[in-house]
């Protein structure tokens, strides 16, 4: 059969072939009319870089103090704190919840869909 799921006579009847009113075939389901168990792979939107402000503040302080670490201790501490916070957030966030932008990457969606597959036949 050309179209899956539909016997050939259905396609020929709908196309008006037997009534002398040929029209372009309106029934052209290319695939099975059922939801697939996976989503197309989409390129995941890149996240932004973290701690850029702290890094730039620290580098400005370095430029002023000839790259000595002792006068810039406060800025360096703030930078380290920011980095630790970002690291912790990234570890906590990477579960089966929505990302910060409110969408789920295609890999996670596919994992969920595989757990509940579409039933396409009777047993």
């Amino acid at each position, binding site marked *: 059969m050309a179209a899956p799921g539909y016997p050939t006579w259905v396609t020929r009847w709908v196309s008006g072939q037997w009534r002398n009113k040929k029209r372009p075939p309106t029934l052209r389901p290319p695939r099975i009319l059922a939801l697939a168990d996976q989503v197309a792979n989409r390129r995941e939107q890149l996240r932004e870089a973290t701690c850029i402000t702290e890094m730039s503040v620290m580098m400005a302080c370095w430029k002023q103090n000839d790259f000595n670490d002792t006068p810039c201790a406060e800025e360096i501490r703030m*930078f380290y704190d920011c980095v630790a916070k970002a690291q912790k957030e990234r570890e906590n966030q990477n579960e089966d919840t929505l990302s910060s932008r409110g969408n789920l990457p295609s890999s996670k969606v596919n994992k969920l869909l595989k757990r509940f597959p579409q039933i396409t036949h009777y047993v």
Partner: protein
Amino acid sequence: SRHSTALGYSPASLVPCRIMPVRWSRYNPSYLEPDVKKESYQKPLEELTEEEREQMELKAVRPIKAAPPTLSSSVFSDPMISKFTNMMMKSGNKVLARSLMSQTLEAIKRKQLEKYHRAPENEKETIECNPYVIFHQALKNCQPIVGLSNITKGGKTYQVPVPLTDNRKRFLAMKWLITECRENKHRRMMMPEKLSQELLLAFNNEGPIIKRKHVLHKMAEGNRAYAHFRWW
């Protein structure tokens, strides 16, 4: 062959693998890490918090992994010094590396004591004589704060300033120290002498390793415009 298996742990009943995993552990996940600190066992039961009590009870039930030979409960053992000794070791000659390390610490102590005895009374308190303190402070001064990583964007590779993890910082400091002492010394100078020299210079924020760190920082500062190419 010594290639790693697909699973870190595979129960012997399912897969009789004759392949030894190279870097992954073959212990059952229920095995706990050994705790060698004497203080954790000398505390009376009442002083422990809830979590520590649970941890103690868990240790009574679960099996414990074998302690590696480098793990020691002695007061003289220091994990940083052990790591540094391992990095200095060549072709498994731990005896030589350890003796070099102890000679280095002795050399530092001798130099500082000489300085101490020569100094006038008011300056004597400022001189640090403990070689372990000097070693730790010198390594801390040598650690870089940001590193550069290669990120390819639009066909071109850029050097992007990136925050480093603690392990990476420690590793870089130790690596720089060792390479500096191996390459830039006189043919007949002994390693402990050169190492003690470099450690004392790094303790005072001078010397070639601190300079190398500053060069890295300058490159990172020069490339700070590319910092947005990072995605983590």
